[in-house]
């Protein structure tokens, strides 16, 4: 196996190489630094497309697997193991797609310590991609934790007034969950004599006795990350205080790490526990949908509103995952991508407004549609996509989830889906409310009259996202074709346990 030809390695370590390169540049050369970082991010995106080209969508198995022995503890090998399936691939594409755009959004906003910012951003990208690709549980954990450090600094150093409190809360919350997961990982490794994901999957009977506890330990780490109600309290703080680019990555990708973790680890490794926990977690997901929506509606701060909308939207993803039908899980995966695009875009737009007026209070705006028509039009498209209007990506995702979970045997009752449907309506209410408060009505603040419209750079950030929004909205088939075989393989390893239980 020739490793240098494997796109997995390139896509994982190109950002790291970029970070090292940036570190060598002199501090004062800000534009060199920016362009080098951007080149690294774009190269990573190109590598991810290469990955897509080499991927066989008809198979749901892990592909292009790399496995190199790395460490040995107590006679158990810890491998450097990477692999990709349809679900992973979409997450990697999303990451590689959003990072350059987020970087572009910080082009003029981040003026001081550009070098540190770009280095941390690229390190973060390596960590994120590693989390999705890792096939060894210890390696996964290492990448998982590794993402915390750059994000801590991004929030703590470039954030707004309460950034330090927010960064600490973010770090401590996530660390608490993940350390219990580490305990579970070590326990499983010692029981089964391997940390390799595929091998563990084959021998899951060995730790089946403790699977409720193990499920709980993993679920806690992932639920904090998603975040699921009632573990979401770090999220609004982190989002509000993070710089725009940080928010985009946090909402767009880091939250997906939690949902991805549930899919990749909880479901196949602990099938019986999954089936037992499914109604409870789905219930929490529905509570999250409604609670997030209601709280979002009550916000005065535009960024906080978007943050709570994430809680609500991720509730749909979790509902889809724990309904455990082919359709609902596929919808959940698609919705992960959708949320990354739509909410990422929402944070970008709110960030652009902030750059103009230096406030996130919705009352400071109002009626600015006439002043900034381009921004208004693009924001309308973003808002409608987030509100799941037919023809946009959100509709496809949420509709598939709801359809899949109505008759889900794992949940046993259509009430979950029924209540979640209310969430769709609420989403439309609070998002249109947001748009109305910002853009419609009379122009109440004279100072807003001078607000400049979007410049070319800002349009360039939003347009690619909107293209994806409508592509998925109007012709989602290519995406579903990527997702379906992998979801099928995944569920095949969960559902026999279901049969055994009933």
């Amino acid at each position, binding site marked *: 196996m020739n490793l240098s030809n494997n796109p997995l390695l390139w896509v994982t370590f190109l950002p790291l190489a970029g970070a090292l390169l940036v570190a060598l540049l002199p501090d004062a050369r800000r534009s060199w630094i920016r362009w080098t970082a951007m080149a690294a991010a774009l190269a990573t995106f190109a590598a991810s497309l290469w990955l897509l080209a080499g991927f066989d969508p008809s198979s749901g198995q892990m592909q292009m697997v790399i496995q190199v022995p790395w460490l040995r503890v107590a006679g158990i090998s810890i491998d450097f193991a990477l692999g990709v399936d349809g679900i992973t691939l979409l997450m990697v594409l999303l990451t590689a797609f959003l990072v350059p755009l987020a970087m572009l959004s910080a082009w003029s906003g981040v003026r001081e310590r550009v070098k540190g910012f770009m280095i941390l951003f690229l390190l973060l990208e390596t960590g994120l991609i590693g989390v999705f690709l890792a096939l060894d549980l210890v390696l996964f954990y290492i990448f998982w934790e*590794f993402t915390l450090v750059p994000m801590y600094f991004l929030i703590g150093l470039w954030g707004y007034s309460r950034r330090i409190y927010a960064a*600490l809360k973010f770090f401590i919350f996530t660390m608490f969950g993940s350390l219990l997961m580490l305990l579970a990982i070590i326990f499983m490794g010692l029981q089964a004599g391997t940390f390799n994901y595929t091998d563990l999957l084959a021998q899951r009977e060995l730790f089946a006795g403790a699977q409720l506890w193990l499920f709980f330990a993993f679920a806690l780490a992932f639920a904090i990350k998603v975040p699921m109600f009632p573990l979401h309290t770090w999220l609004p703080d982190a989002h509000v205080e993070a710089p725009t680019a940080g928010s985009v990555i946090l909402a767009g990708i880091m939250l997906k790490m939690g949902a991805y973790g549930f899919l990749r680890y909880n479901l196949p490794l602990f099938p019986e526990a999954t089936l037992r926990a499914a109604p409870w977690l789905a219930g929490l997901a529905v509570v999250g949908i409604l609670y997030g929506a209601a709280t979002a509606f009550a916000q005065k701060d535009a960024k906080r509103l978007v943050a709570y909308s994430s809680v609500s939207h991720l509730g749909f993803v979790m509902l889809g995952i724990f309904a455990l039908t082919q359709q609902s899980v596929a919808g959940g995966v698609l919705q992960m991508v959708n949320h990354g695009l739509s909410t990422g875009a929402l944070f970008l737009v709110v960030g652009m407004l902030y750059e103009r007026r230096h406030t996130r209070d919705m009352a400071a705006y109002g009626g600015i549609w006439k002043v900034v028509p381009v921004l208004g039009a693009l924001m309308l498209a973003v808002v409608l996509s987030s509100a799941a209007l037919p023809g946009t990506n959100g509709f496809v995702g949420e509709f598939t989830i709801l359809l899949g979970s109505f008759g889900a045997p794992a949940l046993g009752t259509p009430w979950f889906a029924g209540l979640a449907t209310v969430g769709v309506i609420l989403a439309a209410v609070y998002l249109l409310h947001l748009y109305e408060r910002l853009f419609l009505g009379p122009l109440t603040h004279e100072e807003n009259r001078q607000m400049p419209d979007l410049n070319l750079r800002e349009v360039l950030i939003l347009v690619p996202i909107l293209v994806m929004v409508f592509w998925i909205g109007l012709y989602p088939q290519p995406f579903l074709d990527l997702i379906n075989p992998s979801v099928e393989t995944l569920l095949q390893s969960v559902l026999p346990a279901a049969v055994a239980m009933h």
Partner: protein
Amino acid sequence: MGNGDISPLTAVLPELGLLALAAIILVLDLFWDRKARANLGWVTAGGLLLVAVLSVFMAQPPETPTLIWGGMLRLDGASFVFRMIFLAGAAITALMVSENQRLSAQGEFYALMLVSTLGMSLMASAADLVMLYLAIETTSIPLYILSGFLLRDQKSVEAGLKYLLYGAMTSAVMLYGFSLLYGFTGTTQIYDIAAGFSGQNGLPAVYPAAVIGAMLLVLVGFGFKVSAAPFHFWAPDVYEGAPTAVAGFLSTASKAAGFVVLMRVLSAAFSDQALVWSGVVAALSIGSMVVGNFLALAQKNIKRLLAYSSIAQAGYMLIGVAAAGAGGESLPYTATTYYLLAYLATNLAAFGVVAAVSRLTGSEQIADYRGLNQRAPGLSLALAVAVLSLGGIPPFAGFFGKVVVFASGIQAGLTWLVIIGILNAVVGLYYYLTVLRVVYQRAEEVEGETPLAIPAAWKTAAVLSAAGIVAIGVLFLPWYNLSMQAASSLLTFR
């Protein structure tokens, strides 16, 4: 590994080398003028490197552990590996001291440090209670003087006296324990004691309660050396008052020496009481983690913070020792040894940066580290790496240390202890991140201060230890194998 038989004299070549080096330093100190004496730190570090080379090429331990010098010393993997740890710690400390005008121009400082290192090296290989006691005192007495070395600094002298009083008291308690062990078994040979308890050498068998009593007395002395709660009271005061480099040396090399003795004596002499000492050590571990982490939260002085952190870190390492008693095989001691290696690099880096900053800015308050990033980016990065490693964040050495220690606990069935450790690690993160946050506070909040000029020796020390943190973590295997060599030799009796 190594050659089959090794002559007793070759076996102690590294120790003789240390002694010779100390003598050379004292002679140079006499003949060199003040300016030349500033280079004594480099001479010491170079000499230590030479001793390390000597140790690797001449004094490799034989395949099977061997007793030499009438059973006084034991040549095995543990004595070899831990000697390397002490040499590395001493070399980095020497570099850290070398530009410090108050310490570096005095040859005695290096000579005392070398004698103490010699004592540690003997502690790691002692196989007889007489040798062990002498080695511990050879280590400690120079350290008392080093802590109080700054005679004009009241805090330093007080630290020296406090350290001495606590140290002498715990060593007296330990000595009383030794006398009981001797009385029960009629031997001072550590590897014969276990047989003596059960009456295999003609003496009557001893009451289990009496054995446990003697063991607890001995544990007091060892607990003091590793600064485990409740024998930790000296640590914050001594670390704060002592010269920073000495505090770094105390918290790494001296602690490692305590651990190797603890592991050796518990496993060899008290093998029949394994479950009892496992429980006692687990209690010490919990106490250290809780006391260390929670008291560290309130600290304003960086050296006191690091002192409490070092108590907490001893707690994590003790998980490995407790696991060894609870039935883990070689994994627990391997884990503790690996953790010590990781901790050596990590804490030396941390104390190195603190020493440099306090010499340059004159402050040890955490608040005065604000904006350090702008004034000394290299030192800040080294401190960040060290602090993240202490907090157990991958890919640094501290993370792998925690993983193996926790794994050993789980393997031995001490999952509850590991869970307590994990909860403590979260608390620990809080204050480690606080330090980090202060160091990287934003530009406009710091008044225009000038960049700090950092001498070459300090740079070397910081770079070496920071590189060590990354290398021990990412290139895990060689270090792990080294630790395993030490661990398995500790578990081979005869």
